[in-house]
């Protein structure tokens, strides 16, 4: 399997706070890989660094053979790498449709209508609310919008930062189903989750982060079965 993303010994700082302490991992084409870890472990920092919102002081990020170190954030999405950020961060004062159009900012305008149709098929609720301002959507609908918006850029690798945060169990199930469907349709997925049980059960492989370091890794099944992981992240 070809590696689509390689993170090599990155160190990320917030001022003098050393948030990521030399982590390395890989995502292969066609996989679902998950990063799990407690609050403050550095999961979001890792995803934000890969997407160019933050920069690592040392180490490198390689996406489809290209080193991203010097590439500005706004040029990364057109390479096929999209992030659904923590807390959704949809544009609250813009309509659902406008949010999706922003997701297609780097795409040629001809294909947009078709892509909109595709996203509306995946998330029929968004279609009903396409003229509505995103600030008036429910949390779950905003999450769907954030995902749909990222899909508009035709990502090869889709990174999701806690897509289940704050959602009712039924919606969480729905979101995970959609993630699996996207995966089946050929999108590689890097998933960050607090909900370790759900994430590990859909993931091919997982990495466990603790205070800025990777402490364990393995296949989803292995990690699910590991007593240490059970104790720390799966509630016994």
């Amino acid at each position, binding site marked *: 399997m070809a590696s689509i993303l390689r993170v090599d010994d990155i160190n990320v700082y917030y001022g003098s706070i050393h948030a990521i302490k030399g982590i390395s991992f890989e995502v292969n084409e066609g996989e679902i890989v998950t990063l799990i870890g407690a609050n403050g472990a550095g999961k979001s920092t890792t995803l934000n660094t890969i*997407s*160019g*919102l933050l920069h690592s002081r040392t180490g490198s990020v390689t996406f489809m053979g290209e080193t991203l170190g010097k590439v*500005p*954030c*706004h*040029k*990364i*999405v*057109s390479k096929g790498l*999209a*992030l659904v*950020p923590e*807390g959704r*961060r*949809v*544009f*609250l*004062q*813009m309509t659902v449709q*406008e949010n999706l*159009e*922003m*997701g297609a*900012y*780097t795409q040629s*305008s001809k294909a947009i209508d078709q892509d909109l149709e595709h996203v509306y098929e995946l998330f029929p609720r968004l279609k009903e609310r396409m003229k509505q*301002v995103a*600030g008036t*959507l*429910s*949390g779950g609908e*905003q999450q769907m919008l954030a995902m749909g*918006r990222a899909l508009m*850029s035709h990502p090869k690798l889709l990174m999701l930062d806690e897509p289940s945060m*704050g959602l009712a169990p039924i919606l969480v199930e729905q979101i995970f189903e959609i993630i699996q469907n996207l995966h089946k349709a050929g999108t590689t997925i890097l998933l960050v989750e607090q909900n370790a049980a759900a994430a590990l059960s859909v993931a091919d492989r997982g990495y466990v982060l603790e205070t800025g370091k990777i402490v364990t890794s393995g296949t989803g099944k292995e990690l699910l079965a590991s007593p240490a992981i059970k104790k720390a992240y799966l509630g016994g």
Partner: protein
Amino acid sequence: MEFLSYLISGISLGSVYAIIALGYTMVYGIAKMLNFAHGDVIMVGGYISFCAISYLGLPGWLALILAMAVCTVLGIVIEGLAYKPLRSAPSLAVLITAIGVSYFLQNTALLIWKAAPKVYPSLIPTTNAQGESNALQLFNGQLSISYISLLTMASCIVIMIALTLFTSKTKMGKAMRACSEDKGAAQLMGINVNATISTTFAIGSALAAIAGVLLCSSYPTLQPTTGSMPGIKAFTAAVFGGIGSIPGAFLGGLLLGIIEAMAKAYISTNLANTIVFAVLIVVLLVKPAGLLGKYVPEKV
């Protein structure tokens, strides 16, 4: 009839405030900074068009285009040199820099054009070559509206409509709104935030040039401090209407002009500014976000 004529002069003055306020509000909305040098760009626009008409003998419309071009470049340069390096600095540092840029522009103008006021050749003088008045006469001449007032009001409406269409319909305009909400998320969409901010300054400064030409055409004394007071008034208008809101700047500008004209006519010329700011304070007490400003609830 008297009342109508005061009202029209208020709307005309308010139109100039509104054009300036639109620039203020766009820059604030996207760069989240108060560009206190915005008023001085008006003054630069005034001088450039003055030189174009008086020294180069260019027609008014060409002088206007030249002033817009120079101010657009000036806006981009100011942003790139003075504000861009401070993108992640505390807002107080940016504010102080903006005040510095304002003084820099005023003093540079003082060096080049000296302190003595210039008499600005209006785009449409009050009387034409035959000595007839350049004004629209209504009600058997009881109400007279100068052509320059009409031009000012028309420009303001056209600009307002154009900006509204631009931000709601075009890709660039929508990208600006995305940047104004969340620069990080905008970058994740592939939007070049620096280029967007730069474009915003360009548009705001071009508007300031138009405002400068219209302002000086109605009030023909041009000096290095010409932009200060209208700049502050327009800032007030932008806050009045709800800073960051385009219709808010339009409404705020018009209301401010009308209140000022009425206060001058019926209360006292000296108290006019006091009254304008008193109204602002009352409005902000009742509606802290301004007339059309709104808080959008955030969902967790």
